[in-house]
């Protein structure tokens, strides 16, 4: 019972649907109820669903698969509401020609925005079709039953299929918002652990990733990247490279330098030869002490929360601390890749970008083409966890393809390119101060954070593409803006969920970016939750209170409390005696203060001589509202927890004043199998509640739980990420 994923574009040639996607029209009718999620932007039902004359149903979505299982979840929602088998459904995703533009697939919003749209669109199409069937069969609609697209009347026995009613034709209707989706009890797919639709192909080696794209005209491109930020190309001796075997073209435009060859290995060797034959002028621009630099750099300062405590008792004491996070990588296992082909009129770019529409637009502007002359088509890539090199690789391929018409140019970044050039998660500093009462509970909370930006995605602007910035007539990089409420960016989760009577939160955004930065799973929430939840642990310790009870008594949100309690119970927080050198830690947050609730409990063992930290076990409890696919959700949450442990135990980008020194997995190590603890995930399902995004919910709580567990095991409080044996040793000796 699995739907098909449309992989037409991996294979040569492409399917052109028999209808065009019209812009959402103005209906001029009475105002309709607010449509859910992305349906509000794309109310035409034909933008989402197509019933083929052959009985196939196609769901078009602007959301893309990143390994998070979104297509499976959308398929489940659609099949349930439409009353069809999942196997009847084909998903067509992230194609600028055919899909509704749903923006970027990011921020744990795909199910809440895209999923609620699909659910409503499918429910409306079903209602429409049942209405048509009722006319055709001359029986009242409410008497009709639908099974896998066949509408039948149990009384007369008459029946008619969706495809005989409308197969191959457009519906020409807009969603009304008046159809109510099914109650939970009537769903067959939603709420069940439906297996991922894309995994069989990935386990058998079918062509499904962009890396697997092949065509008869395929050639291989490589780009020679600047050795450091802001380096300029002073001399490029290209003639010897042009004579190398298989080389078709060397392309230079300002500081952009690339080569195209017939075979991949020829392209790799030619690029290496080119890199050896060019001279760059470099400057020392990187802040070796990033946190001191952040505190001193000019910043945009915004007070995002300011609640003055009503007059009351004076505080019994004041505590303060500061916390730091380094630059960290997305570190996709498959480096970025793209394939572009220019036919003299249209450019087609196959990409694993999270923002196919915006990136296609940025590429069009970079090449001076009208927007409709660049078609972006999403194909799967390795997990990205935010803005990695995907969009830049697409721009590289576009520039090379433009120089060699009629050939599909495949650009595969090297591991070193990805490590050095991907935009990192920003370094951050947090300073927090709390006035507490005599029980140790918080009266006034004062929180300040310093960070460079967390959002430099293309957004239609070629200045955000590495290639766009390196041309002879470069596109300037726009000054990024911070996110703002309700999602926030650097200050995501900076406002505490706790019911502190007095609260002041200030964001200091430094827009200068000596190291390239952008969206990294969870954005500022990772450092902010690490800081808030570490400090809560410090406050609990100062109050001689149990960290679980200390949190519960300062929370009012019942779902928040339930998640903490469930995690603590499952973990056995209050049970058993602690063994020496073992420690427990808790971390909690509601992601963005509006998405999933997540609490993490960890147990660590710290080896007393080496200070080596071993995470012994982990329990995570989450409330993601209504759950579409419990297995997919569990997989995401556990993966997020493991990834956050990797960041928090091991990861920091190494660099000197000039160059990035983390260039491979030995200079940027990540967590390995023997370091991954057993993880238990507990879901609090809330059928009937809105979907709450969960893909990034575990990042912050995990980091704090780790710091808190290490504190309980050793008595040493590490306030700098990552929490390494070296830092621990220094603190314990100090």
């Amino acid at each position: 019972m699995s739907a098909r994923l449309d992989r037409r574009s991996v294979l040569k040639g492409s399917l052109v649907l028999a209808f065009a996607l019209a812009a959402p029209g103005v209906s001029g009718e009475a105002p309709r109820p607010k449509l859910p999620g992305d349906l509000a932007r794309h109310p035409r039902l034909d933008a989402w669903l197509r019933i083929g004359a052959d009985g196939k149903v196609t769901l078009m979505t602007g959301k893309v698969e990143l390994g998070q299982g979104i297509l499976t979840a959308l398929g489940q929602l659609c099949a349930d509401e439409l009353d069809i088998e999942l196997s009847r459904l084909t998903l067509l995703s992230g194609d600028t020609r055919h899909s509704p533009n749903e923006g970027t697939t990011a921020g744990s919003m795909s199910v809440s925005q895209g999923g609620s749209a699909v659910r409503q669109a499918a429910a409306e199409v079903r209602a429409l079709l049942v209405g048509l069937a009722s006319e055709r069969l001359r029986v009242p609609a409410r008497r009709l039953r639908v099974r896998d697209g066949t509408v039948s009347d149990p009384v007369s026995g008459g029946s008619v299929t969706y495809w005989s009613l409308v197969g191959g034709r457009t519906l020409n209707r807009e969603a009304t918002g008046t159809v109510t989706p099914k109650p939970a009890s009537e769903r067959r797919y939603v709420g069940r652990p439906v297996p991922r639709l894309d995994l069989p192909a990935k386990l058998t080696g079918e062509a499904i990733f962009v890396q697997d794209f092949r065509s008869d005209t395929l050639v291989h491109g490589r780009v020679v990247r600047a050795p450091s930020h802001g380096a300029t190309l002073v001399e490029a001796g290209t003639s010897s490279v042009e004579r190398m075997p298989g080389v078709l073209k060397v392309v230079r435009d300002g500081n952009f330098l690339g080569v195209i060859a017939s075979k991949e290995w020829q392209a790799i060797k030619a690029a290496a030869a080119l890199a050896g034959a060019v001279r760059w002028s470099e400057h020392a621009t990187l802040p070796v002490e990033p946190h001191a630099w952040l505190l001193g750099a000019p910043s945009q300062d915004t007070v995002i929360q300011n609640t003055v405590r009503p007059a009351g008792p004076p505080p019994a004491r004041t505590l303060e601390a500061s916390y730091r996070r380094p630059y960290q990588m997305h570190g996709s296992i498959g480096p970025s890749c793209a394939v572009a082909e220019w036919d003299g009129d249209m450019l087609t770019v196959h990409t694993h970008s999270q923002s196919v529409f915006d990136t296609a637009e940025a590429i069009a502007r970079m090449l001076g083409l009208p927007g409709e002359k660049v078609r972006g088509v999403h194909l799967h890539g390795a997990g990205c966890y935010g803005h990695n090199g995907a969009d830049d690789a697409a721009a590289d391929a576009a520039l090379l393809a433009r120089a060699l018409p009629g050939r599909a140019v495949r650009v595969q970044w090297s591991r070193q390119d990805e490590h050095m050039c991907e935009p990192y998660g920003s370094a951050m500093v947090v300073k927090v101060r709390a006035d507490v009462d005599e029980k140790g509970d918080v009266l006034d909370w004062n929180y300040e954070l310093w960070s460079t930006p967390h959002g430099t995605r293309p957004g239609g602007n070629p200045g955000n593409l590495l290639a766009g910035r390196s041309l002879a007539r470069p596109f300037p990089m726009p000054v990024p803006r911070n996110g703002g409420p309700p999602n926030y960016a650097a200050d995501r989760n900076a406002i505490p969920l706790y019911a502190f009577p007095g609260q002041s939160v200030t964001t200091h955004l430094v827009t200068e970016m000596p190291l390239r930065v952008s969206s990294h799973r969870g954005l500022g929430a990772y450092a902010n939750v690490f800081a808030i939840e570490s400090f809560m642990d410090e406050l609990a310790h100062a109050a001689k209170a149990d960290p679980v009870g200390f949190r519960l008594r300062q929370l009012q949100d019942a779902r928040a409390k339930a998640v903490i309690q469930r995690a603590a119970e499952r973990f056995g927080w209050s049970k058993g005696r602690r063994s020496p050198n073992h420690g427990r830690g808790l971390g909690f947050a509601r992601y963005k203060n509006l998405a999933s609730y997540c609490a993490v409990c960890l147990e660590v063992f710290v080896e007393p001589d080496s200070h080596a930290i071993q995470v012994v076990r982990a329990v995570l409890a989450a409330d993601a509202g209504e759950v579409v696919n419990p297995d997919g959700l569990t997989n995401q949450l556990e993966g997020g927890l493991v990834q956050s442990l990797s960041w928090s135990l091991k990861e920091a980008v190494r660099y000197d004043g000039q160059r990035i020194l983390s260039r491979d997995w030995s200079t940027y190590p990540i967590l390995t199998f023997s370091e991954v603890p057993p993880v238990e995930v507990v879901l609090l399902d809330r059928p009937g509640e809105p979907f709450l995004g969960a893909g990034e919910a575990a990042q912050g709580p995990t980091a704090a739980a780790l710091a808190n567990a290490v504190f309980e095991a050793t008595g040493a409080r590490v306030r700098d990420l990552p929490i390494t044996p070296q830092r621990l040793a220094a603190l314990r000796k100090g």
Partner: protein
Amino acid sequence: MPFTLTVNGESHALEVEEDTPLLYVLRDELRLNGARYGCGVGQCGACTVLCDGVPLRSCFVPAASLGGRALTTLEGLRAPDGALHPLQRAFLDEQAGQCAYCIPGMVMAAAALLREKPRPSEAEIRTALDANLCRCGSHNRIVRAIQRAAEELAR
């Protein structure tokens, strides 16, 4: 210099530049997707194939040096009738993987492990896979899939 390579039981006459790593021959000449590029320097395991049953990182070993060896890729694990290998089935049963970019390399490393040691302990599985990197955090599911396949193979 033309040479012959035996992959998944079939022999192929090839003519590529002598130093071309096996990975590019598998992917670009033979159009096999199982072996994937991850690092090119033997650090991640995404490109793992079997060479006479032993795991080999195809990204930096020249293909021309492997004439006469029996090479197996992910595609070669399936039975002649197309049935999935117990490891492939177990990975699906456990839904082991998120993006799954690393998974073919994991499956191949596991196939080599189970050949050598049909009933490995959990710790032995983790050690055997320690140099195969996964960024999505699918590690525990991968371990469970390998345990499940080992049980099935032992039956």
